[in-house]
């Protein structure tokens, strides 16, 4: 009978629930993880002060026993994780259901429910006068899948007449993981992909996720957020502190001053020395007097629906003149001969910053398809006494981040796409990561994990390389397997029958001569002649006999004892080679217990590939 009452109470509890977190109530049928009705006459696995007992004498709430407080002071009774089989590990959408009641408590006295996340106890409900009622407390995701989850009831009483607290039919319910959640995440381009370093060379980052779990329900409103490795690509300074939005790529090195103008009407080509670094410098003659000087940064690519984040800095901009002034920057639409009106702010025609001030601005949407000039301007009649610096013009395409997947139902997929600019320093990498987060605290977030993006040089990716062998013989790679042959690599065993010989040196026999590796000349040197960083992979076609071991190291320790890599048909040596970089290998062979007749030869093939 009591079980029936409890079941009915649980069924109606949803309607009576006091939500700790707002949000949808349920995403799939909940199950009871833990239940205690105290009908054993003990508090079971609750750890309690002596003030809490299992009592049948004072009108239990349901059945014959309730967990009952009668005394003076503050009494706790706790259900620790270890006593409920590992907290909420393996559970989500966790809720607590209990029948509670108080009697005669004074002001400031109450019954309190707290939950523990492994670090902190959180009070989720506290009340003085409680008429017997069955309540439900829905917990947020902090308490999902939490191995340290614990529950505590506290009753505070000064021991006055009939001051009591009851808790009965306590239950922890939830959805086992395997219920609805964000699953099947993927992202493209795939991990380790290379993207060409072209100015405004855009590529799509696409991530998908599914609301999955085999039960009916919804994963709530899901957002997809693109992240980059904060130590890469975009400095933290570009994070928009107002909106919290994070730009995730930059074009700093490739926005260059295209011309400048002094007091004359003539536009001059920049005289700076462009060194590929972030600093673009225009040098004015000392004490040169100018009026409204300009430096034009031409963004020739059409920038529809684009936001520009720029960081402006200058140094040594010592100015003087009629207006005093300083150095500034503005965004100018050259085709309309006007400065761009910004949707959320108006940037002054000339924005003056003090020396060495670093400023980041979100200039909003630029709708113009015409060339856009970023114009650096001196104010009034000023004299630039030394150099005028501009650097770090960053640019971010507008594509909302996060993107909304809307409400995802069980089985539905969400695909989010961002356009990312590939511009960066060739041979460097950054990492992208897409995180799917439900606005519902019942659905655990999930992320794709980091995917590495390699910045390659402009143009189609080329994985070309050369192999140089002793005698300075160079072989070019070829796109078709197995490629071009290098001269033959030879090892000669010249020990006695049944004998052994170790660290036999590699030689190359071609053009009627034999060239040996030595301390200064590696057996094979791979030079990356392509425009992307490559992985140089070396693998034998076949394994050697067991008593012949070919190995390589990447030092010139000929005859040394350091074994770097042993070749076989299954072992593949992989080395990273930067653009225009080289990697060298010295090859050796160990012969053991050689019983082959003199003149015996073994043949094998060392395959080189790049990727």
């Amino acid at each position, binding site marked *: 009978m009591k079980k029936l009452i409890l079941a009915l109470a649980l069924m109606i509890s949803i309607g009576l629930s006091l939500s700790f977190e707002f949000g949808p109530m349920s995403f799939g049928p909940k199950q009871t993880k833990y239940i205690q009705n105290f009908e054993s006459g003990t508090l079971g696995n609750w750890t309690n002060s002596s003030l809490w007992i299992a009592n049948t004498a004072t009108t239990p709430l349901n059945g014959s026993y309730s967990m009952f407080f009668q005394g003076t002071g503050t009494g706790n009774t706790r259900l620790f994780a270890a006593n409920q089989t590992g907290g909420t590990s393996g559970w989500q959408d966790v809720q607590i259901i209990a029948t509670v009641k108080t009697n005669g408590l004074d002001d400031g006295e109450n019954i309190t429910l707290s939950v523990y996340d492994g670090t902190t106890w959180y009070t989720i409900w506290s009340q003085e006068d409680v008429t017997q009622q069955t309540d439900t407390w829905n917990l947020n995701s902090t308490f999902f899948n939490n191995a340290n989850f614990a529950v505590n009831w506290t009753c505070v009483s000064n021991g006055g007449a009939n001051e009591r607290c009851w808790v009965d039919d306590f239950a922890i319910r939830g959805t086992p993981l395997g219920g609805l959640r964000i699953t099947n995440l993927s992202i493209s381009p795939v991990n380790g992909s290379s993207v060409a370093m072209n100015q405004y060379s855009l590529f799509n980052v696409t991530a998908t996720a599914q609301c999955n779990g085999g039960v009916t329900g919804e994963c709530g409103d899901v957002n997809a957020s693109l992240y980059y490795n904060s130590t890469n690509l975009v400095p933290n300074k570009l994070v928009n502190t107002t909106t919290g939005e994070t730009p995730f790529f930059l074009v700093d090195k490739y926005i260059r001053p295209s011309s400048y103008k002094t007091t004359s009407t003539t536009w001059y080509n920049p005289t700076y020395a462009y060194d590929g670094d972030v600093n673009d410098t225009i040098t004015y003659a000392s004490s040169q007097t100018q009026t409204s000087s300009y430096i034009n940064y031409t963004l020739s690519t059409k920038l529809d629906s684009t936001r520009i984040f720029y960081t402006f800095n200058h140094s040594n901009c010592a100015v003087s003149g009629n207006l005093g002034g300083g150095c500034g920057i503005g965004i100018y639409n050259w085709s309309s001969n006007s400065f761009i009106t910004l949707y959320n702010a108006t940037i002054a025609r000339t924005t003056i910053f003090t020396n060495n001030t670093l400023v980041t601005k979100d200039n909003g949407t630029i709708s113009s398809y015409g060339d856009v000039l970023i114009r650096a301007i001196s104010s009034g009649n000023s004299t630039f006494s030394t150099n005028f610096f501009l650097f770090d013009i960053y640019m971010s395409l507008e594509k909302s981040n996060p993107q909304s997947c809307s409400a995802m139902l069980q089985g539905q997929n969400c695909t989010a796409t961002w356009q990312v600019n590939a511009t960066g320093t060739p041979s460097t990498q950054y990492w992208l990561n897409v995180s799917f987060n439900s606005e519902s605290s019942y659905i655990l977030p999930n992320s794709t994990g980091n995917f590495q993006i390699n910045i390659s040089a402009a143009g189609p990716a080329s994985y070309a*390389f050369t192999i140089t062998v002793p005698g300075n013989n160079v072989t070019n790679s070829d796109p*078709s397997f197995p*490629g071009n*042959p290098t001269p033959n690599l*030879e090892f000669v065993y*010249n020990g006695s029958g049944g004998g052994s010989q170790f660290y036999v040196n590699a030689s190359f026999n071609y053009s009627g001569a034999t060239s040996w590796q030595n301390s200064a000349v590696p057996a094979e040197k791979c030079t990356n002649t392509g425009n992307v960083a490559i992985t140089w992979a070396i693998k034998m076609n076949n394994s050697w006999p067991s008593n012949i071991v070919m190995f390589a190291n990447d030092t010139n320790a000929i005859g040394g004892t350091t074994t770097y890599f042993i070749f076989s048909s299954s072992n593949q040596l992989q080395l990273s080679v930067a653009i225009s970089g080289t990697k060298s290998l010295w090859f050796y062979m160990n012969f053991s217990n*050689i019983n082959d007749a003199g003149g015996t030869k073994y*043949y*094998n093939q060392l*395959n080189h590939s790049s990727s």
Partner: protein
Amino acid sequence: MQMKTRKAIAVMVMWMMAFMVFGATLAQSQEYAYTQVIVTIATSKSFSVTLNGQTATNSNPTFPGTATQVIWFNGTTGNEQAVNATVAGASAQVGPWPACTTPIEVFKNTGNVNLRFNVFQNNTIACTTFMYNASMAAGSTTGTANATLGVIDAAGSAFVSGLGMNNQTNLCIWSNFSACGGGSYYTTFNYTSN
């Protein structure tokens, strides 16, 4: 029929275009080269010589090679025949003549091809003649030892041919004295493999 032909051509062109595009994509993804590796087990004609009761002496590719211990032929009258060889410092005679049971030297093929061994005398001694015979050592089956009595002279003599790898040949040596005066006489036996 004409329409079908057009469709077929269109499909073929699409396939060709797709192949060309796809092929171009593939071509940019990897490059290759390869190295032929040749391992040669060089011919070795090495051998070892072990004098009775001594440790082995390994051959050397450069003449005259490595010296073994010294062999003595001790006579008393200067006219003895078939004097057994003795390793320096050892008291026991090695032999005996002519059915040699304890060879003064054992040759082992430590190379990796079958070998023929020659022995010759570097500088002859007028009052002595050195004789030998050879036999295959126990357990050695590859090779033909010269079991008949031969003479070690300056011209040289093959005492075993076709000796297989790790096979051994026994060599017994005697000296005939003829009117030798008192004193010591010195010569050198040289061994070659080919």
